[in-house]
């Protein structure tokens, strides 16, 4: 039972990271109806920036917030420069550009910081929390940071003018534009926020998976799985889906022989295909019906 609880909490901790990635994916999906395959690489690159800032002797939390700001600007700029001209292009063009971004960012990180594996410090330490054996301080910290971000986002989208404008721009661009919302700018803002959320996910998971250019590949896959399970049209669903995927992954890894340990990524694959086949809108998403 203690093992179960321990693994459950550890699953919640990594699930928080998947939830953040899922949320970033959903934000961009809401804005441009496409999946950001470069989300993981953007997060990885931000984490490298944080590592570089730490190398320059910045205190952890200064580097943390500075990185979030840089990631925000980076995401905003990527939308303005690369995606704005393709707004009305065919879906293939979007996928091509996401793959292009994936390749560019991945290879730039290797070029600038080389491909060796680096350790990334945890602000919470890896010792057990308050001397009990159930959860480590870093895991608890990850859950805490995730919950703070979720609360901030909830408040932002519910109570601020900009947040409401962003929702309006995503829900109905044309009407939003008519009432004076700058839809294009809101889309870019969404990109910036997705990049910033991704950077938090990257910095929180880096002490666990270590820092290297391919570190986010599997995290992104779990993020996708979370987003699909919860529903790509539902930010809240994506968060729940992310937590669920983290817990499923960890429990399967402990209690299912072979599959759990060596085929962890296949769990995500099976989840994605199963949910898309049985209930494409996810657990909390809304069904989209197209008029002919």
């Amino acid at each position, binding site marked *: 039972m203690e093992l179960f609880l321990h693994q459950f909490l550890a699953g919640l901790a990594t699930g928080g990271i998947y939830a953040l990635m899922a949320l970033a994916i959903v934000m961009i999906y809401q804005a441009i109806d496409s999946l950001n395959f470069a989300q993981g690489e953007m997060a990885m690159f931000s984490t490298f920036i944080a590592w570089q800032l730490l190398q320059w002797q910045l205190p952890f939390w200064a580097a943390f917030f500075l990185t979030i700001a840089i990631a925000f600007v980076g995401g905003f700029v990527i939308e303005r420069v690369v995606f704005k001209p393709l707004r009305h292009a065919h879906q293939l063009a979007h996928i091509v550009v996401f793959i292009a971004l994936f390749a*560019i960012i991945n290879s730039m990180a290797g070029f600038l910081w080389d491909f060796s594996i680096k350790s990334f410090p945890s602000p919470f330490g890896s010792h057990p929390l308050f001397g009990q054996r159930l959860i480590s301080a870093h895991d608890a910290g990850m859950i805490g940071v995730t919950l703070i971000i979720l609360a901030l986002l909830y408040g932002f989208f519910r109570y601020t003018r900009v947040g409401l404008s962003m929702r309006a721009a995503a829900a109905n661009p044309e009407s939003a534009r008519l009432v004076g919302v700058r839809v294009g700018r809101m889309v870019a803002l969404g990109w910036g926020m997705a990049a910033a959320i991704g950077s938090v996910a990257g910095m929180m998971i880096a002490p666990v998976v270590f820092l290297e250019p391919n570190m986010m590949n599997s995290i992104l*896959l779990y993020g996708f799985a979370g987003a699909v399970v919860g529903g790509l049209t539902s930010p809240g669903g994506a968060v729940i889906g992310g937590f669920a995927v983290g817990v499923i992954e960890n429990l399967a890894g402990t209690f299912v022989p072979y599959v759990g340990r*060596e085929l962890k990524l296949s769990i995500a694959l099976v989840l994605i295909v199963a949910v898309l086949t049985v209930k*494409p809108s996810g657990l909390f998403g809304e069904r989209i019906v197209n008029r002919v």
Partner: protein
Amino acid sequence: MNTRPFWISLVAAVGAAVVMVLPRRRLAALILVIAAASILPFTVKNFFVFQMTLVMVYTVAILGLNILTGFNGQFSLGHSAFYAVGAYTAAVLMEHGGVAYYWTLPVAGIVCFASGFLFGLPALRLEGIYLALATFALATATPQILKSTPLEHWTGGVQGIILNKPDAPFGLPLNPDQWLYFFTLAVALLMFIGAYNLVNSRSGRAMMAIRDNPIAARSMGIPVELYKSLTFGLSALYTGVAGALGALAIQFVAPDSFTFLLSIALFVGLVVGGVGSIAGTFFGGLFILFVPNIAEQVSKGLAGAVFGIILILVIYLMPSGLGGTIRLWLYRLLQGTR
């Protein structure tokens, strides 16, 4: 070494491929391609023969992807998985079954067709971007599946499998590299002719109708799901045969050769060559073999950046890829002279 015949044949091959892009004159162009391709291996170093073999391997793999994306309008980021299945089928058959190398190709094709069709059945209910997602998951999970303990006895785990290079049969005066080149060339030509005929057949038109408007296609009586699954299977077949050929050429299969990066490379080849251009896939194959080499000479790790930047440029500047762009230029040129 006298390099002149090499350049002549390379220019002739590329020139013929360029002409291939045009309709009509196809037969003449085909003969020119075969002639040039037959001279090539006797005029260059063995390593270059090997590289050109790989170009053809990639060309066939990209052709498979093009059948899916270019003619049926479905996206796959998971073709590295089918390439891997083909390569491993060939390797396991040769290593554990003692099967002759040429029999591995049809088996790899059938296995990949079946796995593509089966993966396709659930996945093809998904539209565009969701299929891209499911196949992305497939590509990411594949190396881990190949390494897993239950399969280790067959796949050799992380170590992979080392293969022997086949010798030329019937006492032909060819070294193994040259023989494999001609073998690959023959298979590639067959696959190309097959693809060309398919696209111009009734089934090919049905595939394209589904690409252009699935609802209209359905109302004309085309069984959309069946066609999409079959196309996915066929596309996997092409890529799987390419994987088997690639395993023979490289003489080695290992899980880490078949990561998502391979899917990206095939996707890059598809876009650069031209989505929906059959002859263009050859340019895609040339591109993904030689451009990374050049980029890696400048600096390690730059290949991805070059890939990415060229992808973005292609999307902005010539959305129909090299194949489509060359076709356009040739048309203009011919119209000007008339």
